């Protein structure tokens, strides 16, 4: 069986700077795949390549065996790839509910003319979209704040709203860029359980960038370690933990010391 997502020999250069070079990653369907590596290793660049914000300089990216390299970001999202951002990017002046509704809108099929004349199909579609969006907010503990502004939510809830919003797209693949950033140990443990539940309940494949090793080791089926834009290791959490190159990349040194 071929992988859900294949990053095939991808290189991304910004002028003279090579952010990603000859990168191979395979994400199996149903897995939770961790991407780890020191700051500046190119993890977020990799997400931006997958979601079409950047185009690869070389190489190909395939989603369900279909090349998505070079497609516009909106098109890639609609193919079933949802994401969150390292620096939360909510629509701050919109309500919590509307943040989710906008992602849900891609499943509504009324035309511009039906919208401008406000024909009956619009009412039916919108009612359903509001209902399902509210339903989606419930497990995230956001239903009570549905009509408040997204910017008024506490930080942790904003992170959750970003995940809820990505799930409203009904994606097969969910990319999470440092979901536990800024969380303490207790919150991170809660998040681990929560992501496990998300994966089961929404049947998504997860790829996550994370620095909290506890979360990564607990949650991931496979881990890819990036350093200077190149994968230096790929394997199960146990293999990664024992890999001397990984230890060297994280702690410095040559990796021969132990």
């Amino acid at each position, binding site marked *: 069986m071929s992988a859900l997502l294949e990053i095939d020999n991808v290189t991304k250069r910004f002028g003279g700077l090579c952010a990603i070079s000859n990168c191979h990653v395979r994400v199996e369907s149903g897995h939770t795949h961790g991407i780890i590596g020191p700051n500046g290793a190119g993890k977020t660049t990799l997400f931006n390549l997958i*979601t079409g914000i950047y185009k690869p300089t070389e190489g190909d990216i395939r989603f369900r065996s279909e090349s998505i390299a070079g497609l516009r970001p909106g098109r890639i999202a609609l193919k079933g790839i949802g994401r969150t951002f390292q620096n939360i990017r*909510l*629509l701050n002046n919109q309500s919590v509910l509307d943040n989710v509704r*906008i992602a849900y809108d891609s499943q509504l099929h*009324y035309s*511009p003319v039906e*919208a401008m004349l406000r024909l009956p199909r619009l009412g039916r579609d*919108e009612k359903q979209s509001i209902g399902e969006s509210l339903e989606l907010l419930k497990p995230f503990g956001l239903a009570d704040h549905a009509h408040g502004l997204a910017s008024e939510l506490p930080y942790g809830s904003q992170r959750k709203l970003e995940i809820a919003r990505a799930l409203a797209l009904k994606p097969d693949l969910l990319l999470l860029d440092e979901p536990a950033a800024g969380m303490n140990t207790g919150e991170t443990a809660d998040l681990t359980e929560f992501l496990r539940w998300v994966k089961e309940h929404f049947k998504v494949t997860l790829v996550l960038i994370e620095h909290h090793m506890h979360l990564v080791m607990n949650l991931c089926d496979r881990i890819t370690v990036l350093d200077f834009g190149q994968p230096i290791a790929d394997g199960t959490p146990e293999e990664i933990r024992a890999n001397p190159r990984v230890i060297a990349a994280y702690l410095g040194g040559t990796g021969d010391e132990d």
Partner: protein
Amino acid sequence: MSAFLSQLARNRWILPALVVIGFAIAILAHYQPIFSGYTQIILITIGINIILCVSLNLVNGYMGEFSVGHAGFMSLGAYTSAVFTTKWLPDIPMLFPVAVIFGGVMAAIIGFLLALLSFKTRGDYLAIITLAFLMIVKSSWENISYVGGPAGLLGVDKYTTLPWTFFWVVVTMFVIRNLVYSKFGRAIIAIREDEIAANAMGVRVREAKILAFVVSSFFGGVAGALYSHLNFINPKYFDIMKSTEILVMVYLGGISSLGGSILGAVVFTFLFYQLENLGLGYWRMVILSSLLILLMLFRPRGIMGMKELAWFLPKLELKERRQS
């Protein structure tokens, strides 16, 4: 008092009632001299300005771009419709709405082209493109002798009446309000808030930009068509000053607000004429623009910026808000 006001704001019957009453008065005024000619001109101008202001708000307010080209779309509608009524269509007053629609369509076609440019550029750079577009359009009219060149187009019948203006104001408000409270409107707003996030949410960004520009320029053209069948038109009228006037109305009333746009257009037009009556005609843009500076300092989003009159909210959205 505030309880009474909120009761008033929630009443779903007031807006339809105002539309019917307004229509009745407009038709009555057309046949009976209940308003002086001067008052009628002011009322029609207010109507045209509301159409201009609401339609520009779609691009500058809801979508958050900065277009200074709206006078260009207005002139496209003005000239196209005038050419239809004076040269191409038989001289029958009943064909006036057809000419108005042609004016709007012509503006919308050019608006579509501008939307294509907006895929590549944003913000300041798009603003400069709209400025260049405005200059191209205005200079083109000056160079086309078929429409009178710099002297302007003569012999246009004065078909624009109070009922027609009121009708087009209602159509504009109806269409733009419906668009704004649909998935397309949410997409347009998402582009303003964060285009990268919008993309990640599967928003069809290009479709939304095209819609915003096409609808905005269509109604800009409609306003132009109404203007040209009331006033003598020449290219000079549709210059950057005209665009600036519309911008002042939009930002005075408030971005992303239909109620604000009506307020902005009414206040601006009223002051515009009132200052002339006070003998300050030449100073009015100094005064009105100074007003805008003060507004930007103390209330940067305009009088009703980002706030909407409950009358304009669809029932579905209102119900959602009340539950909370």
